[in-house]
């Protein structure tokens, strides 16, 4: 986790490394919207598998798979646990009671703590959504030169400050992970056990004492990076150089994706109208059945 090479983009010769950065960003955006629109666990699971298969295609290293799995599993655990306990929509089915309402004190205060089946399902769906986005985001970060991302974003009229901030984040996030480990060990070497207990006061102290040095170093580093890139002609006044020709095949692929997304949005609207009894096309009965399963 603390090895910065795991987090930084590395050059490669796979299809994903050679794909134009605009194509990658568009795929990410289209899939992000699709994931928000789709509620079907089956479709979401397929999209999640698709995002993982892209990592296979990009030949992500074992360490990167470890990182990805840790994040995804934490996401699934966090999402399912919280939804299982705090799911508020109806109907909801209690499958276990953790704290009976009759328990003195907490029981009366909380009205009982239960695990809801619908909460678990909903949590799993949310976990699939976040896991897919996480996998795609990491894939973009690991296979794309930050300079290319910046150039594309500026080419798409993103303000310079935002673009530079984003890239500084991408550039230094790996270093921050590595340096956090160094600071924690430096604290330990001076007799402070940062993770000995998890009392809020102790955690706050650890957070402050860990963040101070990292923040100071990151600020100094960011200042050097900013000075360095500005000294190489990059800055507020820069007229972004024309982006290279978007490969025709990729360009058509992206257009198809956008059309497909528009189709999904249209179908989702139709499904919603039908579901709420506002508009129904009898000839679409078969399509409604498919939508019910997949959307």
């Amino acid at each position, binding site marked *: 986790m603390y090895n910065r090479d795991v987090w930084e983009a590395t050059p490669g010769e796979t299809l994903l490394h050679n794909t134009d950065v605009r194509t990658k960003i568009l795929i990410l955006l289209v899939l992000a919207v699709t994931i928000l629109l789709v509620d079907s666990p089956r479709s979401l699971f397929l999209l999640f598998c698709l995002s993982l298969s892209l990592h296979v295609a990009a030949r992500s290293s074992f360490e990167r798979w470890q990182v990805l799995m840790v994040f995804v599993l934490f996401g699934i655990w966090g999402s399912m646990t919280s939804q299982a306990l705090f799911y508020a929509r109806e109907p909801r089915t209690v499958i276990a009671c953790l704290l009976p309402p009759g328990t003195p004190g907490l029981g009366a205060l909380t009205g009982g703590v239960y695990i809801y089946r619908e909460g678990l399902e909903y949590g799993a769906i949310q976990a699939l959504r976040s896991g897919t986005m996480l996998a795609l985001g990491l894939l973009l970060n690991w296979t794309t030169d930050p300079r290319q991302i910046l150039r594309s974003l500026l080419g798409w009229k993103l303000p310079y400050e935002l673009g530079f901030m984003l890239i500084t984040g991408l550039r230094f996030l790996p270093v921050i992970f590595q340096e956090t480990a160094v600071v924690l060990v430096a604290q330990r*070497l001076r007799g402070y056990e940062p993770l000995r207990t998890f009392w809020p006061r102790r955690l706050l102290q650890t957070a*402050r004492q860990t963040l101070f040095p*990292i923040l100071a170093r990151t600020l100094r580093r960011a200042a050097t990076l900013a000075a360095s890139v*500005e000294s190489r002609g*990059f800055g507020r006044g820069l007229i972004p150089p024309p982006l290279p020709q978007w490969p025709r095949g990729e360009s058509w692929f992206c257009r198809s994706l956008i059309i497909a997304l528009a189709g999904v949005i249209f179908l989702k609207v139709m499904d919603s109208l039908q579901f709420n009894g506002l508009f129904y096309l009898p000839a679409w009965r078969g399509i409604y059945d498919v939508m019910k399963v997949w959307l």
Partner: protein
Amino acid sequence: MIEIKNEIVAFDGVSFTYKHRSIPSVDNVNMRVDAGEFLLLTGATGCGKSTLLKMLNGLIPHESGGCLKGEVTIDGVSTRDLPVAAMSRMVGMVFQNPDDQVFSTTVFAEVAFVLENMGMEQEKIEQRVAESLRLTGLSDKTKASVHSLSGGQKQRLALAAVLAARPQVLALDEPISQLDPQGAAELMQVLQRLNADLGITIIIVEHRLHEVLPLCSKVAIMASGSLLWQGDREEAYRCPELFNTHGLRLPQPVTICQQLGVTPSTDIKEAVAAIQQCYMVPRSQPPIISGIPCELAHKRKDGWKIGMVKAYDIKLPSLRTRHLTFQYDGTAQPLLTGVDFSLYPGEFVALMGSNGAGKSTLLHLLGGLLKPKAGSIEIWGRKHTYTANEVGVVLQNPDFMLFNSTVQEEVTFALQQQGRLAQAGWTEHCQDISQRLGINGMEKEFPLALSRGQRLRVALAAVLASRPSVLLLDEPTTGQDIGHIEDIVGVLQAYAAQGGSIVFCTHDTEVAARFADRVVVMGAGEIVADANPASVFQDDAMLAACGLKAPAAMLLSRALYGGAALRAEEVVSYVQQGCLGSYAGRNAVAQH
């Protein structure tokens, strides 16, 4: 007759005060640099050199927010009139740490960045990138990942990345401070070629004068924001007191020549010839290496000689490693292989080797920053438990060690954590350390807001306050002038005299030769030499293989009289005492 000078850089009455500060960091500087000159800008830490350098491409005032007075012009153009981006075509700027300025993932992309910003066509970009990489000796790395480069290669990449714009002036801010001698030499050779062959004006800020002075034509010295002195290199050699009073270290051959009253030179051959013209220097006996052979002296299987080390009354080492091996998960090669190393009380050991040789890894293992894959570490004969008062570590970057709100809290932090309540607080010991390190009077300051040299000394004080048995320092001399180095070494020597053991990583052979009792050299993850400085620095083959170079005093003494002196004073003393009554005058011919 009017002398026509091709002046390219001019500072006219330049002063600069940073935002929220009342004292100017640069005060009324007037300076001229002619086209094609190689200028060394030097001075004690914090004297305003880097600030002055940032004015060259307009980072000051355009991006600084402070108050600039006076005029800085490059080739007749005021830096106020053009934005930094436009100035970047005239002035290329290279910073201290290559890791902080490298931006892309591949070598090609990094060099192409400036050209893309200039709006150049792809075909031309490819030509220019190839040219820049050829000039910096990185042609074979075009498609390489920037992460696969060594420190020296990264710094040359940073140079190539600005060189691609074909600037008239190159400004470099301590570019070799973090490089090993080999990496530094490679970079300096590239700079020399650019200056000589392409006529690029070079302005370099550096503390490692012995590596830069031989190449430069002009020298400027700053102190407290003012330009104290400027002139030719040869003129500078004639003003040793100027360097000494401002914590600057002249190259050893120059110091030796000066003290012997002969024409100074950084070149060993020239210096030897100059001395031999004036002195008849007798050949010495074969060099005698001080120190008593002890049971640790042995010959390794691979033929590297482990030299003689001090014999100690106390047989129990304060620290010992047995077959220490380390490897990152998922990597093919181990970084350290079977390292056996002992450290005795009172020892002051320099750990040397090229970047990537494994010395920082060893230090981090000893300090507990990393866990060994195999082997063991013992402190006083017991397994290392990584508790606070056993081993103290001062990291290369002191920022990671400063996490309290005041200097006083920082220095007393370890004592409080150890529960030594009686000792906690601003004890006499803490006050003494602070005084010796020159950080007294800063007790209420926020540590991270201090200068780098001060932050390093606070970190050192914080570690020394808990009186560890073993003290490990990672590159404590980086970016420090000799005055600060001497202050730090003085405190460390006092600590060692009380029985503390010290291991410090350094690339500076002169510092190692001057202060260390023992030098351990690492190469390819193994200890390849472990002996006193005199014997280590005589092994030319080993030094070359490990990217190191013997101190100039040793090279000079060897060439002059077959000696093995480590310090300039030793050579001067030998020549003066060995030649008592034999001064042959300025025109004498050397006799052997």
